[in-house]
């Protein structure tokens, strides 16, 4: 597999604080890599260095073999993306924004512009001024601009912000299709694990400016911390804890938390009923990134 983005020993200081600490990262053609980490972990800083917004205080960035420092224009010609919010020229129409980007990039046909507008379903609103767009529409326009030149590397920073569930699904489909069909590399940053699980082939987890691990998404799913968490509201917490064993823990006076696969729920209910524990309610808690991190980092708090 072609290594589209190769980052080695990348570092960045803001004043005396080291925000990105010696990170290595590979993104291969045809895959979607999730760049996972809480707010302030250094995701956006790393992305901004890759995209040329920030200078780096150490390390090398190569895109398809082009060194970003030495061959800036060649390297950047292969990159598309959105950093933080898709900030366009608000006083101009979506179409004018795309035209300006296409002109600066060069070699983008009128047919391609129309095609990309259709792809992000903006054909009815493309001539409206961007200031009249909703956040979701701006995200779509940003995506259109990021994809218009068929980049080899697509970088999206928190792309689902402001999208409705249908929009998120659509984005997911577009990204997967783009990565797999165009054989492009996609780097998506997010702090939402569930979203990453559905969207990515692989994740790199970043905390405190360091990459903690890189894992395949199914590998990550097998981590204990990635198993679902069920919340049992019961009448006897101590008895329930006794029955459910080590995988359960108390959470307040009436609730017990149990980490298990879904297959484990019926047996737990049966055992609790058998022991005479009254069950009022069972809810499934979404997996949180914190859980994953606690697991991966061995329970060390990661929030800076």
């Amino acid at each position, binding site marked *: 597999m072609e290594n589209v983005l190769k980052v080695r020993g990348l570092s960045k200081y803001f004043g005396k604080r080291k925000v990105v600490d010696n990170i290595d990262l590979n993104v291969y053609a045809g895959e979607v890599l999730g760049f996972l980490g809480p707010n302030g972990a250094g995701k956006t800083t790393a992305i901004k260095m890759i995209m040329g917004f920030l*200078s780096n205080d150490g390390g090398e960035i190569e895109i398809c073999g082009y060194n970003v420092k030495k061959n800036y224009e060649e390297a950047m010609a292969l990159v598309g993306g959105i950093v933080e919010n898709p900030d366009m020229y608000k006083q101009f129409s979506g179409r004018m924004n795309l035209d300006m980007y296409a002109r600066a990039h060069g070699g983008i046909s009128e047919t391609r512009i129309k095609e990309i507008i259709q792809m992000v379903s903006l054909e009815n609103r493309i001539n409206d001024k961007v200031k009249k767009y909703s956040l979701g529409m701006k995200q779509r326009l940003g995506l259109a601009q990021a994809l218009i030149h068929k980049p080899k590397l697509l970088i999206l920073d928190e792309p689902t912000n402001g999208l409705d569930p249908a929009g998120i699904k659509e984005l997911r489909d577009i990204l997967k299709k783009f990565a797999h069909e165009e054989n492009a590399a996609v780097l998506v940053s997010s702090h939402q694990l569930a979203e990453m699980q559905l969207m990515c082939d692989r994740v790199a987890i970043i905390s405190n400016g360091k990459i903690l691990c890189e894992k395949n998404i199914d590998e990550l799913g097998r981590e204990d911390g990635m198993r679902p968490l069920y919340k049992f509201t019961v009448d006897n917490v101590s008895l329930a804890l006794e029955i459910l064993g080590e995988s359960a823990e108390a959470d307040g006076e009436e609730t017990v938390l149990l980490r298990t696969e879904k297959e484990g729920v019926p047996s737990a209910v049966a055992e609790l009923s058998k022991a005479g524990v009254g069950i009022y309610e069972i809810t499934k808690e979404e997996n949180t990134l914190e859980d994953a991190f606690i697991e991966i980092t061995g329970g060390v708090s990661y929030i800076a």
Partner: protein
Amino acid sequence: MRKLNALYINELAKVVHKPFYIIVVAIIVAAMFLTGVAGNMSVSGTYYYIEDQVISSSYFKDNLEFLRKDISFCDSNIENYASEITKTIEKLLDDNEYEDKIFVYSDSKVIDSLYQMSYEFSNYYYYTQQIAQYERYEKYEVNNISYLMECVDKISRNEAAKAFETRYEKLCEDYPLWAEAAKSNDFKNMVPAEIPDKTEDVSFYEEVLEQKDYKQYIEYQNKLVSENKSLSDEAKALAIKANELKLAINPDGTDNSQSIRERENAIDEYVKISTMAIEGVDSRGTILTPAEIEEYRAMSAELELAIKKAPVGFGAEKDDDRELFSQMMISVGMGIASLAVLLYAATTISDEIQSGSIKMLIITPVKRSKIFLAKLFAVMTVIASYGVIIFLSFILFNNIFGFGAAPVIFTAITGKVTSIGYYLYIFWDIVLDMLKLFVYASFAIMLSALLRNSALSICVTMFEYLAVSNVLPLIIASFDGVTVDVVKAVMPEASISLSEKIFMQNYPFVQSGAGALIELPKLPDTSFLFALIYTAVLLLVLFYIGFDSFCRRDIK
């Protein structure tokens, strides 16, 4: 190159698609049009603003004869200037088309010299008149003593003056106390008895002036006229009528406004010219030829008409005002364009950074240096576009309002007096103004990249543009022991303007505004080459700071 071109087109698209640009264009055109309308209505009083900068052809026409005859009066530099200007004017006056519409643009040195020369002429004539009077009446007005001595000093290079000097010396011998008082300007200790026949009049005159009784003063003037034995009855009647006219326009003599003063001057001029036409003798006592008398009659008739018609008198002929408004259209257009350009330049980078749209630029596969250059070229283009709009509007309105387009005379950089077509002059004037604006705009771009804050960058730019080059030199100069050379060394831009260099219109800051109030000495001239090199170095420094700041700093 292709990418730079694409970014440049993008920058222009941004400019054109914003309402700001269109609004500014509309304001420029409207303001120029309204200035034209005002000029067409010939609003009075504005003539005087440019009096120091522009000498109208009528001035030269009046003095042409003197310039021709008495050029040897002056020192050789002034003589050369004067003779060159005279020749050029004479040539242009031959084309009747331009009569009375020629304006002479020159540096202040030339103008000062010409005024000085004119002053010397008038002194000379006044002085010879006094001699004539003295010879006729053998008496002298006390007030004229110091003036007379000044005249003697000024015209001592002239043969006629030398002759007078001898007579003046005799006067001093005859009246030693008078002479002594005159030398020390001590009129109070003068012995009145030494001035025969005039003593009474003198005290009366002084009293009148002290009481500021204008009516009595006019009566006194009339009395002098009627007693004047050398005047014909017709001339006397004219002078008395003129004095009454003066009394009518300024009944108590307290109205000191420019327009009244000009009207009074016009009346004096009318009396002078008319008297010469009636008597057939000029103020020096030379007998006039019939052709000259005819000329003076025509002038007298014109003046009479002017006095009756012109609300502001002789000094503000209609044509002069109109010429002024023609030029004011350019100033108004340039003023608005300058502010608009500076607002645009001061925000061109900071706005993108503050709004976040800079990301759109950074993610394009183009080096930041090209983005910066594209912005710089866009600012240059906007400046040029305003220049074109101003020039075209000027031609249009100048024709609509019929302001005329007589050639312009100026002292070229080579020192030669030359003339060019009016529109060509305006064209170069605009080009050079735009170059000057570009220097300020470069400063604004630099600030925009450096401060990354539009409000701050606008404030500093406007402060620099409106205040620094005028106020700061004055502040520096206000410290004890600071000479003009120090001011010049600290702030060379205060005395540098390429357009002023090329058209030799040296009016450094001290001649206008606050500088004029505290009467700072004029900055010494800098050479054109120095101005050119200084401007180039300044531009390079500004570009470097802006470029470096934009290209190397992180965009967070």
